[in-house]
């Protein structure tokens, strides 16, 4: 067992039209953690994800899954795609069937599992994503958020080791964002899988992610724990990203209003702790 479930070394990818989408990406996805790939539009996140499960083949550089280079043979790819499940950004391009049940079953049936096992996995994936009541609804009558859950369930049935999600929160309302991220966190913990999400929703990163890579124009520009990444405010602003709102507030309080904080806080609970400490420190005696 390798500590890094997925690793890229100096990965480059150019599209047939000559656009260089990835320019030497090296990153390590740790087993059993949630990793965020942060980046603005066109940073290369989606291209990177398609390289992860062998849909795209890198122009140069290396990809390692569980320490072994990817096997691009027919069977190798099949095994790889079973182990690395990708949930796409737009559920309407992923859901091919008008039947929720049939769409979810697709990946599991392709693994040639016995029917009982397929049914068990479909049921458990629906239960987990909270869509059991949509079983007999047609796909086109679902809301956007429900479609996102169905596409997630359709990947969970393969019981992958790595769950890769392209912009899992885009297009969802605030409640939906919280729900889907909690669901992912639970899934990651209970099944012991590794989760990789791409996002430009800054505020969810310190709350739900253990590690973050920041991409810009096909390169990794920052990496580290969310704490560390968000201490580099200027770099982030230079590439069309920003601090979490709370982090920004704490930064203003510290630098413009002369609050004497130590360190940084990027979540509400961290900020609360820091402000409490500051208040206690001011009490006479």
């Amino acid at each position, binding site marked *: 067992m390798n500590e890094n479930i997925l690793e890229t070394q100096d990965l480059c990818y150019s599209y047939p039209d000559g656009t260089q989408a990835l320019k030497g990406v090296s990153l390590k996805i740790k087993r059993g953690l949630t990793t965020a790939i942060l980046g603005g539009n066109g940073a290369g996140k989606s291209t990177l994800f*398609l390289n992860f*499960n062998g*849909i795209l083949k890198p122009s140069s550089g290396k990809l390692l899954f569980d320490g072994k280079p990817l096997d691009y043979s027919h069977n190798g790819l*099949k095994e790889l*795609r*079973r182990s690395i*499940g*990708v949930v*796409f950004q*737009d559920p*309407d*391009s*992923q*859901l*091919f*069937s*008008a*039947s929720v*049940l*049939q*769409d979810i*079953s*697709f*990946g599991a*049936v*392709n*693994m040639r599992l016995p*029917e009982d096992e*397929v*049914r068990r996995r*479909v049921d458990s994936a629906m239960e987990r994503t909270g869509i059991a009541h949509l079983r*007999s*609804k*047609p*796909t*086109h*009558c679902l809301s956007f958020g429900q479609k996102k859950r169905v596409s997630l369930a*359709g*990947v969970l049935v*393969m019981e992958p080791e790595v769950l890769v999600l392209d912009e899992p929160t885009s297009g969802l309302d605030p409640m939906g964002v919280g729900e889907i991220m909690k669901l992912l966190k639970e899934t990651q913990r209970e099944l012991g899988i590794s989760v990789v999400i791409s996002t430009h929703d800054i505020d969810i990163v310190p709350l739900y992610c253990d590690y973050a890579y920041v991409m810009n124009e096909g390169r990794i520009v920052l990496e580290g724990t969310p704490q560390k990444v968000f201490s580099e405010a200027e770099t982030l602003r230079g590439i069309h990203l920003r601090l979490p709102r709370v982090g920004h507030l704490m930064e203003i309080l510290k630098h413009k209003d002369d609050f004497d904080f130590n360190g940084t806080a990027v979540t509400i609970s961290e900020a609360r702790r820091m402000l409490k400490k500051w208040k206690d420190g001011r009490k006479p005696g």
Partner: protein
Amino acid sequence: MISIDKYAYMSKLKSKDPIQKIIFAILTLGVCLWANSPAISLAVLFIMGWVTVVKGGIPFLFFIKLMLVPMSFLVIGVLSVAFNVSTEPEAFLASVPLAGVWIGVSKAGLHQAVLLFFKALGAVSCLYYLSLGTPMIDLLAALRRLKVPRIMVELMGLVYRFIFVLLETAETIFTAQNSRLGYASLSAGFRSLGGLVSSLFIRAYKRSDELYTALEARGYDGELNVLEEYHERHWTGYIPPLAANAFLIAAALLLRRFAGGPAG
């Protein structure tokens, strides 16, 4: 069309075996065409309407509205059958002279028209029964079970799924154009419509690409293998359709013998 689809999913007949429903619809359709009698056609219309509305729970008014859809075609068709042209006014029940000939309604023509009218309504009601009680998904499952070539069923399934995506996209583009006065004048309307169609085509093409990628990511092997939905499948389900049709056939034969109805 969209509302037919909605009602099909709400129908109380949804859980019944789709093959039984197909057999009922097609068998009754066949009997309606074979019997060639307005009375039998009316009976078919009532049976199918009753099953759809009472057993299926489709609103009565909606069913009537649907039955009115083919009416305009039907009326034109029936009128052209009913009216004849002749040089002899005696051949008609009622007629008007026009440019040296007589145009009018003959007894045979009238009979033919009435027959055609009810036969068409009866036949249409059979198809409405099927489409209002069987969601497309179940119909596709039935076709698979009936060993229709896989590629055809898969294509039908994809077309069905993406009709809705296509419509939604077209609607969004249309609204966006309309809110920028894209349809304010006739010429602007033509220009906007052209833009709508071409961007719809490009988006559909892009979407098919994305769909293929997403399918590949889930282990697509050239076949869309999925779980089958479960339906109540029991041989007793065949009894009501067969009984109804046996009754219709018997009634048609009796009518022919005793009422001197038209021979087929």
